[in-house]
């Protein structure tokens, strides 16, 4: 099956449609929430939460003996929340750096989770196989009820975000100030964090513990490159996330047997890569182009300024001067002169040049800008 077949199949094939819808919604909600994690400089948070969820899955299975995904995810949710709030209290109570606290919880919980998983695998229980799918996820197991659950959570999350938009924004930008004007920053923080935990836990089935944090970070990091507005960033992150989900599913479905979770993450990473290189303001490519252009403009402007100085001393600004005089200006080349002529700033008549009206005005403006900067 190639990608085109896939897209025609999606419309007809029920299973494929369910999976695609599921990964798209998951990508959208994690992208949205990921923006908050990225802006709070808590990039590791997603990693810590998803790893912290693992022992919950194992314990839920040990306690109930069933492999029902809701039971297991409830376990994941509880242990994810416990891990998260431990991190919070470690940071506030012990003055450990937040990345230390995150790393600590991440490895302790994950280690414990792995221990439990190996223990479960040694049990003589026919039911035990397949828990390890939560490590790397298995999108194929998504069913309609999962998609409905995902949609509900996304809907509630959107609603809460719209309601508390102003509070989220101010907390992200300036926490101390937020406290002084009477908002309970803890409440806002818990609200954001709980949604992040929820989204991550819901993604475990699809993407898995190990790669889940990439779903949170990649779309948001990519979105940040394209915009300077928080709302646009959140929307873009959701769009990037959703597309990663769809394309990831498409690629893995069309290239038999490729695991969906990792492919989704790779697609999201490609979004990041493209954004880092090609975004117009922050992208590496355009920065380089701007740099080169600025340098060229500067040479041009300097030459123009030199000519302006000479022309200034004459009553008639278009009074012709000899080209030789320009040799006094360090950095003058015939090429720059030609470019100035092309731009219609200077007119050339044999070995004599003169400033045009436009050139004079441009040069004068250059000056006022420079002196403004010097203020």
């Amino acid at each position, binding site marked *: 099956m190639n990608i085109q077949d896939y897209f025609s199949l999606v419309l007809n094939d029920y299973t494929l449609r369910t999976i695609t819808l599921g990964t798209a919604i998951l990508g959208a909600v994690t992208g949205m929430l990921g923006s908050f994690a990225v802006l709070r400089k808590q990039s590791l948070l997603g990693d810590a939460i998803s790893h912290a969820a693992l022992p919950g899955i194992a314990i839920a299975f040990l306690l109930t003996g069933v492999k029902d995904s809701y039971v297991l995810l409830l376990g994941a949710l509880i242990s994810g929340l416990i891990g998260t709030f431990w991190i919070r209290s470690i940071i506030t109570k012990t003055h450990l750096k937040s990345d230390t606290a995150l790393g600590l919880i991440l490895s302790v919980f994950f280690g414990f989770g792995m221990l439990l998983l190996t223990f479960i695998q040694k049990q003589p229980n026919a039911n035990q196989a397949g828990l390890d799918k939560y490590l790397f996820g298995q999108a194929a197991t998504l069913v309609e009820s999962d998609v409905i659950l995902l949609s509900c959570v996304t809907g509630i999350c959107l609603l809460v975000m719209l309601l*508390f938009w*102003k509070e989220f924004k101010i907390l992200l*930008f*300036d926490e*101390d*100030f937020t406290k*002084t004007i*009477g908002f309970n920053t803890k409440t806002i923080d818990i609200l954001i964090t709980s949604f992040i935990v929820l989204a991550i836990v819901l993604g475990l089935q699809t993407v898995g513990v190990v790669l889940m944090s990439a779903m949170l970070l990649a779309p948001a990091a990519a979105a940040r490159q394209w915009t300077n*507005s928080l709302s646009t*960033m959140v929307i873009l992150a959701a769009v990037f996330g959703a597309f990663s989900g769809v394309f990831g599913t498409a690629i893995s479905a069309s290239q038999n047997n490729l695991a969906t979770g990792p492919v989704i993450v790779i697609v999201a990473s490609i979004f990041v890569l493209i954004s880092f290189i090609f975004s117009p303001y922050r992208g590496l490519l355009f920065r380089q182009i701007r740099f080169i252009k600025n340098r060229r403009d500067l040479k041009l402007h300097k030459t123009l300024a030199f000519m302006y100085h000479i022309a200034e001393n004459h009553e008639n600004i278009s009074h012709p001067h000899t080209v030789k005089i320009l040799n006094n200006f360090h950095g003058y080349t015939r090429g720059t002169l030609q470019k100035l002529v092309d731009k219609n700033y200077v007119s050339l008549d044999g070995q004599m040049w003169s400033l045009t009206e436009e050139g004079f005005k441009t040069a004068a403006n250059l000056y006022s800008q420079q002196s403004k900067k010097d203020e």
Partner: protein
Amino acid sequence: MNKKIAVQVDDLTVAYNYKPVLWDIDLEIPEGVLMAIVGPNGAGKSTLIKSILGILKPIAGSVSVYGKPYKKQRHLVAYVPQKGSVDWDFPTTALDVVMMGTYGSLGWIKRPGQKEKKLALEALEKVGMLAFKNRQISQLSGGQQQRIFLARALVQNAAIYFMDEPFQGVDATTEIAIINILKELRKAGKTVIVVHHDLQTVPEYFDWVTFLNVKKIATGPVKDIFNDDNLTKTYGINYKVSIQE
């Protein structure tokens, strides 16, 4: 003196770890003064302001604003944090940041509307930043960012202003612009408390001063207590400041 007391601090002690960084501070700030808090780096100036504003929890002591606990008087107080305390690469505009000054009076959930926008624009005008209203904040210079913070505090329309080093990294023009705004606030009967590092300008800018170095060294009118004795006690070295009469 029969002036009202705007802010009263009693027996305030604050510690981040074990060692207190503020020790048993008693402080009365009369209404309508323009007060400098001076002291060396690490003296606890920012900590003092943060504790007064409830950002930090002191291990002992109490703070009251016009006779009531700070919690009940938030609407009377505005705060300009140290500029470096936020990430200026945050995706938002100058106008948006100034608008945040209205969030406190709006309360939970309610969105800022036309009225709030108008207030923010007026404040931007006052600090000479109207032309930059739609500028992404990371593309502002340090002095311009400082003005944005000041505008945000002006929007709060408070009775008491706390400012943590508003002159940090600003040029002479901006400094004069800011001090003129502060003096205007005082003229309007507001109380302004400023963490200040340039000792030379204290007598010129302020009428009240507090010397702080873990303990409160002295507090009172600049003309009475701004002298070499207190400076030496605060900074630990022999300080000579020529005070213009």
